[in-house]
């Protein structure tokens, strides 16, 4: 029984560590008091931007060109396009503007910034 307990413990400890590594790309989104908790998250495309300005479509690293073609395709397949930008609090404004320009050109109507409620 002790063997089984230890085995389970090891399993869950390792599983916990692996999921932690995969979780949300270690992006610390900014805090804001007026953020609204969404009720429906299904109709949005997620773009992650880390502190160094690297772009991720979901969890897949992409270049600006790849992101643009992905968003154009997404807009073609399932309009209207809403873009959820999860940018690190330390991301520079230049990168945010670049992604917004890409989104705008792809036909996005709404940009949603991910924040942590205070």
């Amino acid at each position, binding site marked *: 029984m002790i063997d089984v307990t230890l085995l*389970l413990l090891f399993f869950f400890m390792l599983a916990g560590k692996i999921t932690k590594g995969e979780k949300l790309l270690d992006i610390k989104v900014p805090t804001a008091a007026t953020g609204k908790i969404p009720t429906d998250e299904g109709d949005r495309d997620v773009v992650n931007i880390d502190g160094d300005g690297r772009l991720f479509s979901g969890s897949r690293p992409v270049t600006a060109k790849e992101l643009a073609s992905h968003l154009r395709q997404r807009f073609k397949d399932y309009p209207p396009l809403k873009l959820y930008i999860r940018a690190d609090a330390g991301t520079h404004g230049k990168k945010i503007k670049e992604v917004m320009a890409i989104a705008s050109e792809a036909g996005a109507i709404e940009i949603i910034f991910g924040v942590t409620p205070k």
Partner: protein
Amino acid sequence: MKRHDHPQIEMQIAPMIDVCFLLLFFYILTSKPVKPEADMDMTLPGTVSQEEAIDIPDEQIITIQDNGQIVLNDLPLDKPDSRELPALLATLKRFKESADANKSRALITLDVADNAVHQRVIDVLNSCAQAGIQGVTFAGATEEEP
């Protein structure tokens, strides 16, 4: 022929429950609650870039400089290193009130410097939301890439 006698195996439920509780307790104690993320949304302007500025009476331009200094129509407001923006919020509230009195839509254009951090942009958006201003756009968001 020799016959093997298999001992009767019984499932011990009580220690199993003990272990289950132990593990449950451990994971409840060690698990961190995941904070839900909230939304701050804004509508994008059209994809056609405007060559000349249109004369909109109730439009204010907020510039966020590289060091985090907020400038509202050439007037610097609040400290660049402070997260609280009381002067900006008070001005935006007055702006919203006067726009409402004129029955026009309060519009804010954000001009973000290249090296301004994202947290600062969110701080300004937060102040706009607190003042009840819905129309916020980004300057330069529709510019073509060189």
